């Protein structure tokens, strides 16, 4: 159980080595405003609190729990009462205590997102069911199998935010999911279903808000700046579990797929399950694995060891066989402008990347490096195979470091 599973400050452990923990017991708490609590996903004994490989590279302190197999729930886990009886503050508190973070991939703490500053009134809640990355089908299945839970979670989040309209955005390639939500919308005026064009990155929140409402999120802003909050459908389902059953976020659905696994499937796993166990559950490797990605093929992170645990924000595990992993050798830019056409944030990737390459950070910043959503479209379309996104990521990283340094 890594202590850095979310965007923001790492969690602070609340347990010690040798201590017995129960299923769902809070084992670490948020350290700062943007941080999240962590709960034991198995019952057993804490055997180690030490640095452990992290998907983002390097090592991050993790709490290792030896599973005793009893799955005995911790005390106080149970329904939190009906939605009508809960106040918005109580809902926020439940979400915070359950350690819920955005399950779409970025893992931003949900309680922060549903607590916008008073000067930014929220009009709409958008439930994001686009799932635009190839291979991933977790949200798709979730929308069909747990439609009611997602709707309940959406209602709870809407109550916490005080919004009157919940828009469910689903890509057109998931007709069953659209039909399921249309049923809900037919009997509940709160909901509205929109079927969207199938394209990448349809599920990026700023692009989704523009597509649904025609509102453009300002540079460096958040959807809250235009009166919208976007939540993933899986997050809504997790909120429903937290209210109806009292479960903290200890498990999630992931897609184990790619041509490098024997039986691609969606599995519900406990947070903290080693990636290798999930791959083994999907029948193991098909041929020699070449690359293992956590997340989708476009935004996923390649990991160097399958010892890393599944995180709260892990939406999938993609295995690419050895023969399919290509090595690219970048050649000079031919000024074709395809990256500019492809950029969903309307940036000029080539210009920002060139500034980054020359170390001209202020110029990269002026050209909107910080507005890059890191979707990878520019690099994907580049005929010269230039590592555009990689340079932009470097510029963003250095700009953030500079900002921290200057306070």
């Amino acid at each position, binding site marked *: 159980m890594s202590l850095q599973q979310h965007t923001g400050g790492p969690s602070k452990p609340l347990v010690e080595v040798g201590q017995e923990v129960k299923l769902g017991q809070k084992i670490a708490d948020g350290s700062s405003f943007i941080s999240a609590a962590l709960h034991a996903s198995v019952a057993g004994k804490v055997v180690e609190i030490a640095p452990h490989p992290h998907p983002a590279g390097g090592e991050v302190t993790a709490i290792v729990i030896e599973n005793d197999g009893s799955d005995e729930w911790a005390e106080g886990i149970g329904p939190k009462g009906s939605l009508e009886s809960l106040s918005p503050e109580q809902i926020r508190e439940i979400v915070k205590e359950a350690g819920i973070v955005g399950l779409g991939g970025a893992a931003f703490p949900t309680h922060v997102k549903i607590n916008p500053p008073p000067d930014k009134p929220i009009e709409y809640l958008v439930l994001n069911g686009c799932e635009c990355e190839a291979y991933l089908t977790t949200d798709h299945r979730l929308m069909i199998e747990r439609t009611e839970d997602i709707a309940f979670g959406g209602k709870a989040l809407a109550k916490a935010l005080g919004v009157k309209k919940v828009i469910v955005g689903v890509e057109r390639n998931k007709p069953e999911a659209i039909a399921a939500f249309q049923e809900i919308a037919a009997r509940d005026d709160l909901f509205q279903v929109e079927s969207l064009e199938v394209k990448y990155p349809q599920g990026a929140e700023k692009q989704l808000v523009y597509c649904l409402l025609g509102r453009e999120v300002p540079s460096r802003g958040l959807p809250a700046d235009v009166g919208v909050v976007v939540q993933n459908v899986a997050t809504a389902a997790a909120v429903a579990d937290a209210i109806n059953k009292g479960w903290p976020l200890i498990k999630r659905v992931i897609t184990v797929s790619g041509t490098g696994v024997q039986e691609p499937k969606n599995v519900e796993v406990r947070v903290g399950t080693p990636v290798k166990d999930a791959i083994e559950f999907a029948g193991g490797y098909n041929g020699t694995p070449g690359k293992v990605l956590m997340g989708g093929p476009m935004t996923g992170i390649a990991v160097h060891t399958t010892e890393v645990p599944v995180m709260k924000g892990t939406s999938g595990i993609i295995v690419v066989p050895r023969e399919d992993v290509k090595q690219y050798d970048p050649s000079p830019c031919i000024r074709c402008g395809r990256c500019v056409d492809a950029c969903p944030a309307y940036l000029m990737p080539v210009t920002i990347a060139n500034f980054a390459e020359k170390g001209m950070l202020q110029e990269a910043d002026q050209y909107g490096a910080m507005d890059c959503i890191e979707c990878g479209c520019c690099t994907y379309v580049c005929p010269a195979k230039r*590592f555009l996104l990689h*340079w932009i990521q470097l510029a963003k*990283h250095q700009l953030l470091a500079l900002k921290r340094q200057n306070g």
Partner: protein
Amino acid sequence: MDVSWLSMISMGLVGAFFALVLAYASRVFAVETDPRAAAIEEILPGANCGACGFTGCSGFAEGVTAGKAEISGCPVGGADVANAIAEIMGIAAPTDVKRKVAQLLCAGDCEQAKNRAEYNGVADCRAALLVGGGPKMCTYGCLGFGTCAIACPFDAISMNEHDLPVVDEEACTGCGICVEACPRDLFQLVEEQQGVHIRCRSFARGKEVRQACDVGCIGCRRCARECPEEAIEMVDNLAVIDYEKCTNCGACVAVCPTNTIHWQKEKPEVKKLVAVS
């Protein structure tokens, strides 16, 4: 009157008018500068590297005259420049200016240090670090993409055939830009005459170091025990040398089982400072 004469006279008058205005303005709006600052700038190396912490050489020269910068503040110029500045400022020359050069605290080139993954991305150490912490198994060592060599304004760092940076100690001015550039903090400015260097910065346990690299410090403590001056201290599984105490005797070099400690016996001192255009 001929039109050519007319234009010559009128242009001449306009020219004379502006010349007078400019001459007057240059006296009235003259910015007072310390003549010593100009003299100091003259003798500075002129590399504008920024190693002194000021904006270029003129910034440093003004800093010295304003009393904000040390006379020996230019690491590139070293003792000679410090003496010359002292002469201009009319104060005693500093005696403790010793030339420093950059030393790389890693010996794990692509032959010695193993990789854990194949890397295909921007050939830059800082960028490689963003991809899962870089391709090398050792999470402390040199990544070998030469960000330091590109950053060095004096061309004193070159990459050898095994992708490890080599510092040309004669060309190195000790400006410290490589220290800043290396994302793994592998450069250290050390006084020139020091010849013994522990070229490893891995705080990992011995077993992990052995798995990752053939020349890493495994924390066996032999060097620390052997050192007659007690100049080597163990910090989290890593032998760290105290250059204040080290006498270049080389006793530690012989006992190191992994050849992590490099020794240049009777190191020649570079007398002449490099001229920088």
